[in-house]
């Protein structure tokens, strides 16, 4: 079974629920993580949810000289292997959409992992601007 993460930006109201859901889904040591999804205003009061596109020929994967980023063939997400990452910031610099970045609280690289196949942002988005669908 294959799934796809779908964004329907016109439904986004900028409520930032996705951001909160993501931060809590990625909490460690009783501290929320940095959100991997970014509801951003493109005009005053008009928002779109920006998130990793899980590119086919992903620049982040190519830029990692230490094989710390790999595709999960089941969920389709490019996942970070924390044990291999040395925080060289190559992926952060390479991603054309700015969707890999450093969480300085947890001191680790963060990028969307689709929550291992059950993305919290899509579950909690009240307007269904985000959805994880069977294809």
């Amino acid at each position, binding site marked *: 079974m294959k799934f796809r993460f779908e964004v329907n930006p*016109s439904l986004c109201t900028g409520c930032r629920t996705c951001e909160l859901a993501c931060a809590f889904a990625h909490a460690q040591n009783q501290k929320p993580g940095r959100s991997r999804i970014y509801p*951003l205003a493109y005009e005053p009061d008009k928002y779109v949810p920006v998130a990793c596109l899980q590119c086919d020929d992903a*620049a982040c994967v190519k830029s990692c000289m230490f094989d710390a980023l790999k595709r999960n063939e089941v969920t389709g997400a490019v996942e970070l292997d924390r044990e291999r*990452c040395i925080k060289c910031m190559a992926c952060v610099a390479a*991603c054309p959409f700015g969707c890999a970045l450093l969480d300085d609280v947890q001191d680790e690289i963060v990028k969307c992992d689709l929550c291992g196949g059950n993305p919290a942002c899509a579950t909690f988005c009240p307007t269904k601007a985000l959805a994880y669908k069977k294809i």
Partner: protein
Amino acid sequence: MVHITINGKVIKATEGEMLLSVIRRHGIEIPALCHHEAIEPTGNCRLCMVEITREEWDGWKKHVTSCLYPVEEGLIVSTHTPDVIEIRKTILDLQLANCPDSEVIQKMAEEYGIYKTSYEVVPEGDNCIMCYACTRICEVLGRSAISAVGRGHRKEIAPPFGAEPPDCIGCLACAQICPTDVIPWTDRDNTRTIWDRKFELISCKECGRQTIAREFADYLIEKRNIPREYFEICDNCKRSELARKMGEIVARAQEVAI
């Protein structure tokens, strides 16, 4: 799939995996300094020592460095026997004499009840434990800009001939991986300094914020065939750019609908 016993519990592991990874995955804390998944294990620091035995060994047992020991069916592992703890204490005691100022080692030693080394402190110690993690990660990267030079107690990690290393690209991989944090570097304005060499940091074309070293980016562009323009803008500005593009699409769709 193989079955091993760790501290009395039967655990499944993948053939070829090293013991240390399996031990850690199951939440058992054992100290290790030179281990990192991105480099081949070397067994240099000896801290990850555990005791192993097998049913058919008849009570015979041995001590191995778990970072270097591949799992095998029927292995019985103990991570905290009195002997193992004694070995770790001796190593930490010695390392404390070798690296008196290393916080990492101080903390590890304290966890094993050692607050002060019983040996004589190495004069002019520099906190380097000679684990070679730095030279190995540089090798993985394909640069090998630094290596061990000198012999005996004078051995140290350095660029060739003690001069500015020509193959260094300023990525900081060595400084990041160093378990005792002894490789000095600085970022000031748009200049990074490491191993006495200076590197230009890329400044974001939109906001001016600094990202990675220009030479590191050039290396990735060439080696991994990544478009150069990806590196010219910082992650913040790239997200805003994506938002702007998505916004345009939304606006256009709404116009069409009207």
